Every structure is written in C-alpha cells, then in structure tokens.
C-alpha cells in the first residue's frame, strides 16, 4: 500500500509518501504468516535533494483463521522490530515531522509500525460476515503494549484500535468500502481517541484487487473539522489469501 498526504500552508508544501510493503505466507490452510514493513519519504518545497527518508518498524505476525457459516474470523499475534529511529539532533524535527505525518495519514491506525524507538506486541483480530448479494460487514481490532527501547522513549503504554467497515458491491468488479475507525492513544496524549473515516474503492482485475481510498481524521487532535486537519490518500493491492 502507498499512503500519502500533503500539507500546504503559507510558504510551503510538504508531501509525505509512505509505502507499506506486506507479504503473507500460508503455512497451513488455517495459519498465515504476515510480514509488514513501512517506509516514509518526505519531499517539500526545499526540493528532492533535501528530501528525508526513514524506515518504519517491520512487524511479523502469525494468524489463525477459520470459517463458520457466513463468518470468516482470524486472530493473531505480532511483534515489531524497533528499527524506526529518530535521532535527537538538529535534523530531528524533519524526522519527527515524517513519522508523525505518516501516523496521521493513517488516522493513527497501527501506529506501532511507525512510532520511533519503540517496539510493540499487538494482538489482532478480524471478523467478516457475508450477506446476500456479496455484501460484507467486518470488524477489526487490535490491542498492543508498546515499549520504549531507546532515545528517551521509555515506559510501556497500551494502544488499542477498532474499525467497522463494509464492502458494498457496485457491479461485478467494483466495491465501495466505507470504514470507520477509532484508535486509543497513549495516556500522555491530550485527547485519548482519534477517530477517522475512510472511503475506499476497490477494483477486481484479472491480476488481483486494487484499491484507492481517502482517509479523513474526524476529531481532535488530527481532525479536519476541529483539529490539525490531517488526511491521507491510500493506493494499493489487496492480499488475496
């Protein structure tokens, strides 16, 4: 998936590209291994030569999945490697901006993939319920202890996230996927919840299912109505396993 966001303000425009590479391996029909690793690239009006790039935290997850009538359920456990690093130097502000914008464009969803100098052990679960006509309702959630490992990031905090989404077929190849998500932020945050709405369009082709979507943060701290006005645009290909 490629996430991107742009911020334009008096005198400057900053664009953050955030590719998330994800691969899944079916060990058994009901057991999956998943590896996700994100990156960030900040380009602003200072030019590409002055751009900033950082790696996120790779996460390895194991999932058990099962099917029961119209229900598809999967649950698993992941662990991140704390490769995302923000040096406390004079260029630290550029790195902080890149990581924070990347988390913002995802509505803080799975922020442990990006938060620097911390590792996490997320427990993840998802349930899909298929209705007649190809409609699908789904709920997805995760809870993750996040542990500071270096550079002033200390202590353990608990993050949580919950999303509700639907797949609404429009024709045989296209689906509209509205999604509402809420993330429980660390206890140090002024506002403890960040909610966001995403609308995705998904197109099925002979090479797989591709999607494009736009995410709007809804409330403080990042909301487009009363907060810092952060949003994200997502492009990618779904994993069909």
């Amino acid at each position, binding site marked *: 998936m490629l996430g991107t966001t742009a911020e334009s303000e008096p005198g*400057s425009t900053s664009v953050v590209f955030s590719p998330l590479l994800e691969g899944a391996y079916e060990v058994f029909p009901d057991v999956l291994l998943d590896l996700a690793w994100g990156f960030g690239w900040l380009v602003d009006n200072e030019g590409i030569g002055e751009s900033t790039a950082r790696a996120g935290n790779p996460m390895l997850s194991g999932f058990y999945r099962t099917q029961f009538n119209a229900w598809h359920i999967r649950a698993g456990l992941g662990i991140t490697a704390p490769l995302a690093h923000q040096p406390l130097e004079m260029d630290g502000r550029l790195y902080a901006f890149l990581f924070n914008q990347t988390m913002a464009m995802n509505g803080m969803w799975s922020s442990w993939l990006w938060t620097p100098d911390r590792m996490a052990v997320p427990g993840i679960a998802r349930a899909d319920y298929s209705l007649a006509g190809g409609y699908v309702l789904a709920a997805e959630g995760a809870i993750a202890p996040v542990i500071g490992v270096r550079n002033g990031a200390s202590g353990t905090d608990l993050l949580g996230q919950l999303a509700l989404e639907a797949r609404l077929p429009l024709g045989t190849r296209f689906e509209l996927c509205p999604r509402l998500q809420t993330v429980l932020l660390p206890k140090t945050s002024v506002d403890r919840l960040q909610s966001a709405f995403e609308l995705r369009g998904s197109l099925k082709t002979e090479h797989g299912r591709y999607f494009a979507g736009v995410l709007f943060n809804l409330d403080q701290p990042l909301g487009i109505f009363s907060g810092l006005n952060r949003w994200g645009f997502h492009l990618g290909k779904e994993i069909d396993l």
Partner: protein
Amino acid sequence: MKRARHLALSCLALFAAGTGLACSQPSLTTCDIAQRSCQQDIYYKVLSLRGDAIDPFDGLPPVTVISEDAYRTMLEQEQASTAQSGPNPWDKALLLLHFTSASSSAADGGTSDGGTGNSSIDDQVTHVYAFYDPSTKTVTIISHPSQTSSDDRQQAMITLAHELVHSLQDRELDLNKQDFTSSDDYLAFDSMIEGDARFYEYLFENGLLALGYPQSDMVAMPNYELNYVYTHFDQAGAPLFAGKLLIYGLGAKYLATAYDSGGNAGVRHAYAKAPHHMVGFLVGDDGRVPPVSNGDVCPAPVALALAPTDATTSADQFGALFFYTFLRGWGVAHDVAFTTAQTWTGDFLRVQASSDFTTSAAAWRIEFSATPPAAIAQALSATGELTVTTSGQALLITVSDSATPLVWTADPACP
C-alpha cells in the same frame, strides 16, 4: 495429501500527489493558562503554527502551577546553590573586560525566559509567567493572582506558547545537550532553541493580538526586537547578559528568514543547517549572511608569572556575538561593532588567576577576515584599562589587576 502453500505480496502503485488545502488553524480566545483547557488550546495552536502533526506518545507535557512564593523560594535556592561554588578565574576576568559589572554577577539572570537577564529575583517573581525545565520535562506556571487583566492573560498565553515550543523541541533534539566545545558553540545552539521558541511566539502573538504582520514578512518582528536592543543597548544589561538577550532575536531572525522563503518546511531545514558559530546569526539589515569559518585561531598569550594551573587558568571561544556586545560595552557604535563582528573568523580568550585568586588577568585574541577599523582599538584603549594590539587581521586585548605589569608570552606559532 499435498498441502498447497501460497505466498502473496501487496504491490505498490505510483502516485502523483496533489496538494491539500491550507491547514485550518483553530482560533484562540483569551484564557487563563492555569486552566488545563487553556493549556490544551495553546498546545494545539502551537502545533498548528509549526505545521506539525502529533506524536501520540508525547502530548501536552506535565504542567505544574506554583505560587509566587514557591517560585521565589526556588530562585533563592538556586542563587544560594550558585553562591556556594568556589572561586574561579572567570568572575574577575569578566569584570575586568567589562562583560559583567560590579552590580551584577555571572550567577545573576539568564535563567528565565523573562528576557532581561539581569533581573532581580523580585523582577522574576513578578514578571515570569512560565518556564520549561528539560531535566524534568515539565512546564511550570507561576500563578499571579493580582494579574488578571486581559493584557496580563494574553502575555501569559504568549509565554506559555514559547515554553511549549521548548517542550516540542525537547522531543526532536536534546535540550540537555552538554558537549559544547565553547561558549560560542553553546550560544549558537541556544540561539536556535530560543530563536525557534521566539519565532513561533511571534506567530502566536501575531494571531492572538491581531497585530497584522503578514505571514510572508515575519522577519519584520525579530528585526523590530533586534533594532530596539541595538538602539537601547544601555538598557540591555552588561555585555554578557546583552549577548544572552540578543540570541532570542538573532535566532528568531534566522528562522523567520527561512520561514519567509520556505514556510515551516524552510524552518525545518534551517534547523538542520544551523550555524555552529554565532557569526552565522549576525545578519544585518542588508540581509547578508556572514561566512562561517571553522573558528580556528592562534591561542592567546599566557602570563607565566601567574603560574598557570588547571584550577586557575581557563580558556574559551566567546564568538562574534559576545565580541559585538563587548565592543558596545566599550562605547563602540552599533554599525562599526556589528560590521566588524561580522568579519569574525575565530577567537581565543584565556583567563588566569593567581593561586589565591587575588590577581586576575585575561588575554583575548580575535581574528578577522579583514583588518578591524582603527576606531575599535582607540575606543578599547581610551580608559587605559585594556591593552590593545592590532596585528594585521587580528586584535589582541590584555587586561589584568596585577599591581605590577605582567609579561605576556605568545605562542611561538602565532604571528
């Protein structure tokens, strides 16, 4: 039974991004900074002004509200702690060079963001609204029950905005940094820290008070501040404190210039390219940025009669800003002092004291990219306290309170 194994990868798509709309900046009304909701509003406003998103692990820092009496006790304890430190060669040497005056000391002032540097504890208790302590990563607000007017509250909000910038900086770079090579190196770092906080304080103030400065000309505000200090230098305290006062405006001007040309992105990059010597911040009205050398310089001579030891001898590089304030302290006009300081390429200040600290001496060698004007040597030697020698593009200043003239031994490698 043969088991099917599958591997799937998500793919990347190329994307050309457009630009979003201007960030909506929440409006702010006058409020009491002792209240949590007010602190949060100011915090979000500062984030918005800096163009930042938010680090979910570092929200509003812990904020403590204390009384004026508690703050007074804190300042008195700090002063007592400083007074307990033993004699050092700097105190008298700085007095001889007129960097400090008899009515002020190195321990006085410079510890708050109130600005004047030589303010007394009474002044600080009355006028300091808040401060950020990087060692505890907390903001302390001083409650002033008698200051409840709208103007007072707005000033308090502006101060809190300044301190919250410091708390944000503390997550991006190390405000507890100690490995400075010289006073000049420290001042250059501090100029970025305080200048950054001052610059966003300007933006905050501009919005809160509707001052009307266009965001495309934010350098006007630090220019106004700097020109006020330049023209009222006698009110800025002794030269050592005046230098510490000027770093606010000079750093703010450096970042405002970057902001005018490239917005917050320009500021972020200007941070990464911050000068390591104060000469890089001495940008005059003409906008010319002086070249920054590596600061290497010939060592200043030594007075062997004072039997130099580690306890009684010390050396430092004071840099172009302190050279400027030094000149102003000796009566050199702003234009001459400033343009000469802009040609600074390095300096070496050696201070010495006798073993019983009854005799002190200082030798200061400053090198320039051009020969300093003769008016400078004349002004510095006018009272007879300083001995000033011009050698090509270098100036050597010596001073001592020794009853008998000292013999200065130069480094043989120096011209």
